[in-house]
């Protein structure tokens, strides 16, 4: 039976939402699921992790060196814990997990699996290659153990109804001093960065002018979303080209993508193929975007977009 260790990510007293998704992936593998958290004073984070459905146990490793998550500092500690009988060590696939997991993997002399998007069993997984333009199914050696990062966009977080036990752990590993934390410049919060925003609203050439793009910005602000545009809108001069979404612009994967007045040429779709939910608003019912949109609304965007902004 599998015994799965999930390395939990957290910041400022809050457990990262990705952890619940990793638990969901772990449930696909089956077996015991335990979470380990590293920090200097974890506070509420442990109980947030303990509340996740399916989690059997939460370990906390608190020491001053763990104040900020640095791979060189956490990796030796994770290795020591992992060697205590775990079959799998999983990490959320954000920058925290991507930075840390391979270091753990190398110390364990194990070939890691990156970005698990589907679980077929304890040793078989799907993962994306070529920017998701192909999917490979990999068979992973079970011994000595499996180390992997989980692609967060592919799993839904488990509910928070549980109450696992929380236990403090001491780890003996010698920690290096060659890496030191200097500071963090947080994401500016006015309008989310297009590349990483969880919600994005985009406008196409149908907007007709840069002035008209205002309605897109207004909708985005109401939603707390980033703003993008099609190549046609950019080429027509309505918005600057760093807002271009598509094959030769930005390739994004928000959970929600609202395309207003965008026909859906394949070059644009290449930029949003990994979006969670695509909403399309277009007056042409034959627009190719309706072939891939999860929700489509045919109509005049100059009426629909302001109405949507108002009703949200």
């Amino acid at each position, binding site marked *: 039976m599998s015994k799965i260790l999930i390395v939990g990510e957290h*910041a400022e007293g809050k457990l990262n939402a990705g952890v619940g998704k990793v638990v969901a992936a772990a449930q696909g593998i089956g077996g015991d699921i335990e979470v380990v958290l590293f920090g200097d004073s974890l506070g509420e984070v442990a109980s947030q992790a303990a509340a996740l459905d399916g989690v059997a146990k939460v370990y906390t490793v608190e020491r001053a060196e763990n104040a900020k998550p640095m*791979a*060189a500092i956490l990796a030796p500690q994770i290795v020591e814990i992992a060697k205590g009988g775990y079959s799998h060590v999983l990490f959320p696939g*954000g*920058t*925290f997990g*991507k*930075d840390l997991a*391979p*270091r753990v*993997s*190398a110390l364990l002399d194990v*070939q*890691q*699996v*990156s*970005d698990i998007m589907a679980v077929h069993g304890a040793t*078989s997984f799907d993962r*994306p*290659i*070529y*920017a998701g*333009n*192909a*999917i*490979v*199914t*990999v*068979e*992973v*050696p079970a011994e000595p153990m499996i180390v992997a990062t989980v692609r967060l966009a592919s799993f839904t977080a488990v509910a928070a109804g549980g109450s696992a036990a929380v236990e403090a752990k001491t780890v003996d590993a010698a920690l*290096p001093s*060659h*890496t*030191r*934390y*200097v500071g*963090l*410049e*947080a*994401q500016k919060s006015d309008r989310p960065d297009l590349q*990483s925003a969880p919600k994005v609203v985009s406008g196409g050439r149908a907007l007709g002018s840069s002035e008209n793009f205002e309605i897109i910005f207004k909708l985005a602000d109401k*939603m707390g979303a980033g703003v993008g545009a099609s190549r046609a809108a950019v080429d027509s001069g309505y918005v600057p080209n760093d807002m271009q979404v598509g094959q030769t612009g930005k390739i994004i994967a928000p959970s929600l993508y609202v395309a207003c007045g965008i026909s859906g040429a394949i070059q644009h779709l290449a930029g949003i*193929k990994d979006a*969670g*939910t*695509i909403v399309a608003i277009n007056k042409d019912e034959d627009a190719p975007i*309706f*072939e*891939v*949109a999860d*929700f*489509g*609304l*045919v109509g005049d965007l100059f009426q*629909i977009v302001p*109405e*949507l902004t108002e*009703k*949200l």
Partner: protein
Amino acid sequence: MKVLVSVKRVVDYNVRIQVKSDGSGVVTDGVKHSMNPFDEIAMEEAVRLREKGVVTEIVAVTIGGQKSEETLRTALAFGADRAVHVKEEGDIQPLTAAKALAAVFKKEEGKLFLLGKQAIDDDANQTGQMVAALLECPQATFASKVEVEGETAKVTREIDSGLETLEIDLPAVITADLRLNEPRYLKLPDIMKAKKKPIDAMSFADLGVTPGAGLKVTKTSPPPSRSKGVMVKSVDELVEALKSKGLI
């Protein structure tokens, strides 16, 4: 200071890749290959560090078959002084690559190891971190800014919550992210000179590396195609639908 830059030959980022119908892999014959774009950024950073006087020697290294030599010539045209070709054919997984690269780094007595954060074919995003683990040295991944001062470096990294700055002791591994720099255009005379720069060839055996079991790819498939969803008839309906999915 000697810097090593690891570069990989991959299918060019412009190519629309095709999955073979028998599921055995991606079509790579007859398609354009080039240096992994993130490795180009690492190369550019190494050259800029030399222009700043921080770095005195740049050695490019690649692991791959005969055709990978083209990628080394590109690195040499960029400005690498020498190149190392670990000549091995077939699929080379990150852990094995890391072992070889760490061995080359040790052999070369490098001070700084630069490479792209991931290769655009496998998208593993592991090799740099693994090299650092094997060398027992610091890693600074997804770098968007690098400042080297004597025996330490200050690296700004692009992480989910913003820009994090770390101070690391050298020798260290830094992986390049998209916004670290914009690689220069190669000049014809440099491409010409690159043909004459030295390349040392070696094998895994020379480096004491034995490839492990690794992952086995059992199938390659095209991505799931998105299918047509639901047409709603009003804004109200749309708002309802999005709310029920927890998106707004």
